């Protein structure tokens, strides 16, 4: 066959069984699992390599920077142990380059996995023409005809219209991860996990940070007792945290960004070198031609799906951020497996008992299943045990006794309903909690499972012991 000339290549049309739109942790996983079932798959994304927001400008680069930040923090803590470091000299260009290497290594790995599975990766922007075809703009393939499509276009940072000004000093999470410089004064608008993670990075690099949050606490959604140790630690690294306060205007002056806020944190106008807006994310549903299919959006702007993640259009599935809360990469990956299985004709449903949430601040906060706050809102009776890390040998050796592990159980039968952890490594420790909930474990099970000593994982076991009274390393006199 003769090679088509460059110009006519865009008229090429491709026929596949599964067309995945968006190559984030939902999209690429869906493509992989569909291909592994022997289906012919195309994966379309605007980036040159798969990975989506998570790998290119989300989870992975932020974790690389947070790792660097924690080293800086720990080098300061080491003075307590008689180990003294000079104040670290930060080569921002090299740090940025290293972060880029981490990302590049991951996305190249994914590209390789795509090739190995025979997946047609198309760089371009896909738009549904109807329920059977997508047109691809700026791509080597103009049209993809599919039997099934999986929509996995993710989400983007939401920026309130009132604060939208055209200035490089005003950053969203993507821009902040680019590490343009270390601003002397940085304002973080929004005290959710993205804002606090990036605040942690910039604080370690030397920025003076002000956090403005509209609600009455940081990390809305997490139990307050988990947030407290983080808030206490942030007080040392962050200049000020203004709660129940809203930014009302931003304008650029020659000195920086002039920002005005109102609320309990006071009414003030201050100038910052940069500001980060991290007030939430919106599902990416526009410009995709969803209206040309039978799929519909719900009142919150998410694509409506059934338990198999199928939209109202029988040929089209939706997964990840675009298909509903929580907007988390691991939820997208789990949905990807469900959608791929459903398309392959297997009985599949997305029915998790628990999805973990992790905030990679220092200390980390992680929780899964039912929170105490939710139990209260539902008027549901729960039995809660809290194990303070001061009683953990491992935590003491790390000089980090500010952590806490808590277990939320059903008083009727001891069933583990929720787990919350704050402390270094909480994100890794929470996996046991998810497993416990998914497997229908009772507190007695967790208490009886042998945990390695000395590790932080013992705190999960000991919190389960506390449900029944005392734990090995925590004595609580029996109630009379």
């Amino acid at each position, binding site marked *: 066959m003769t090679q088509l000339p460059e110009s006519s290549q865009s008229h090429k049309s491709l026929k596949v069984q599964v067309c995945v739109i968006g190559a984030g942790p939902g999209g690429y996983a869906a493509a992989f699992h569909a291909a592994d079932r022997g289906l012919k798959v195309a994966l379309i994304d605007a980036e040159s390599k798969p990975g989506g927001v998570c790998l290119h400008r989300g989870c992975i680069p932020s974790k690389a920077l947070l790792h660097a930040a924690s080293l800086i923090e720990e080098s300061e803590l080491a003075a307590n142990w008689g180990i003294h470091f000079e104040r670290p000299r930060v080569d921002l260009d090299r740090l940025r380059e290293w972060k880029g290497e981490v990302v590049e290594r991951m996305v190249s790995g994914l590209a390789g996995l795509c090739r190995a599975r025979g997946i047609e990766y198309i760089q371009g922007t896909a738009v549904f023409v109807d329920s059977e075809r997508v047109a691809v703009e700026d791509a080597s393939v103009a049209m993809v005809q599919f039997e099934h499509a999986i929509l996995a276009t993710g989400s983007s940072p939401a920026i309130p219209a009132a604060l939208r000004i055209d200035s490089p000093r005003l950053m969203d999470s993507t821009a902040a991860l680019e590490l343009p410089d270390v601003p002397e004064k940085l304002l973080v608008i929004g005290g*959710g*996990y993205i804002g606090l993670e990036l605040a942690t990075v910039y604080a370690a690099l030397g920025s003076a940070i002000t956090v403005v949050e509209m609600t009455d606490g940081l*990390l*809305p*959604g*997490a139990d307050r007792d988990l947030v407290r140790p983080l808030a206490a630690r942030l007080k040392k690294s962050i200049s000020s945290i203004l709660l129940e306060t809203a930014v009302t205007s931003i304008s650029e002056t020659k000195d920086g960004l002039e920002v005005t806020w109102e609320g309990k944190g006071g009414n003030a106008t201050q100038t910052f070198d940069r500001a980060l807006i991290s007030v939430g994310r919106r599902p990416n549903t526009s410009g995709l031609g969803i209206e040309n299919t039978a799929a519909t959006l719900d009142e*919150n702007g998410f694509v409506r799906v059934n338990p198999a993640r199928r939209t109202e259009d*029988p*040929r089209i599935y939706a997964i990840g951020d675009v298909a*509903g*809360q*929580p*907007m*988390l990469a691991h*939820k997208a990956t789990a949905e990807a497996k469900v959608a791929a299985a*459903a398309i392959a*004709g297997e*009985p*599949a*449903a997305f*029915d*998790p*008992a*628990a*999805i973990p*949430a992790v905030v990679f601040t220092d200390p980390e906060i992680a*929780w*899964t*299943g*039912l*929170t105490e706050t*939710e139990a209260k809102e*539902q008027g*549901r009776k729960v039995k809660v045990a809290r194990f303070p890390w001061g009683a953990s040998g491992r935590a003491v050796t790390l000089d980090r006794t500010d952590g806490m592990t808590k277990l939320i159980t*059903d008083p*009727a*039968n*001891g*069933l583990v*309903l*929720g787990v919350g952890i704050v402390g270094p490594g909480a994100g890794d420790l929470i996996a046991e909690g998810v497993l416990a*909930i*998914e*497997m*229908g474990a*009772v507190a*007695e*099970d967790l208490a009886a499972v042998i945990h390695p000593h000395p590790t932080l994982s013992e705190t999960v076991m000991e919190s389960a012991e506390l449900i029944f009274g005392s734990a090995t390393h925590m004595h609580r006199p029996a109630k009379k």
Partner: protein
Amino acid sequence: MAIKFQLPDLGEDTEGGTVVKVLVAVGDAVEKDQSVIELETDKALLEVPSPASGKITGVHVAEGDEIRVDELILTIDAAVGSDDAPAEPAVPVKAPPNVEPKTVIQAPAKPEPRPVAETPPASVPGPPQPEPSKPEPPQPVAPSAEVGAVPVAAKPAGAGGPASPSTRKLARELGVDLEQVLGSGSAGRISKDDVMAFAKSRLAPDSDREGAPGAPGPVAVTPIELPDFSKHGPIERVKLNGIRKKTIESMTRSWTTIPHVTQFDEADTTDLEALRRRRNEQLLAGGKAKLTATVFVIKACVSALKAFPQFNSSLDVAAGEMIRKDYFNIGMAVDTEHGLLVPVLKDVDKKSLLQLSDEIKDLSERARRRKVSLDDLRGATFTVTNLGGLGGTAFTPIINHPEVAILGLARSQKRVSMTGERLESRLMLPLCLSYDHRLIDGSDAVRFTRKIAEMLEDPGLLLLEG
């Protein structure tokens, strides 16, 4: 005195229905037993009678509402001095059909499902299956506040405990609804074995089933993922009515639990037909209902059932017993525009052909107008289904569980046959008897079918035995 009138117990298997018509309005005076609403249940259109005389002060249902037993229908201000007015004000009243109040664990409303997480990366809404608040299975269900929401009869107490993801997957593959499964682990945890045992028990006879004593409970019809038909052409999705849904359940139960065998035979009904013709001329002249072939067949069946009592029985596998019935109620399949109904002719052995003929006519007409009562649809010991009017040479009817046999009639055909040395044209009626092979042996089935045929071949015998 205000009476809160709740939908009375409609009897086995019926949990409620759709309000087709509200026959009274606020301010109306009603008499005791006067119909107040028309209710469409799975099987029939029912008129629900008022429990007392008085004035309607509140109507709490509207046409089209789906209501369930015990749901408030009306408030009636009972006539002063009425015998039926209760002493206490505003007492919930069960209507006449409910003889004595059943011990029912009144379930408070199920706790609201967790709201779909709108909040930041918090937990997810509780999944449908591992609803963790379910009581522990080994404990008897006590109507305490702790136990809370136990949907009565919808599933066995303690069912729907937590299940691991792999167990949930297995359940999906087997079409098992985890809400129905009783977990054997701590906190009602459902294991893969529990799911497999449940799936197996579903294939076994009702009485063999664990967990749901008494009411047969809904038969889980394995939902099989359907292809996308619209790929191949235009389609339309049509909602099934109550009768069809009930038929799906009962057919699935019968087909999956009873090992069916169908025995074919034919009866020479030439003489019977001649007799019927003669009689009908007279009956018509006298303005009476015609005798149909069906009525003779039903009579013949009773003779055969008396001779072979195991055909007039039910099987109690759990007890290891056969339940022999000393009454002869014959179900009669009637094809209506809404679907299949099987009204029952009671005490057929005690009624004459003419009596039965009138009853059949009345029942089938009422069935077609959906005016049969639930009572008319219950208590059959054996069923006859006549498709001969439409055609067909033979078919294999499905037994109406918990009966153990069913007789199908196909279209009679004239056949040349040798009678002695002569060739004669004879009218042959095809008989198709499906029987439960667990209880009935093939040889008895042949004898039973032969017996029916013989009765029909010599109508005189009907006189002697019927």
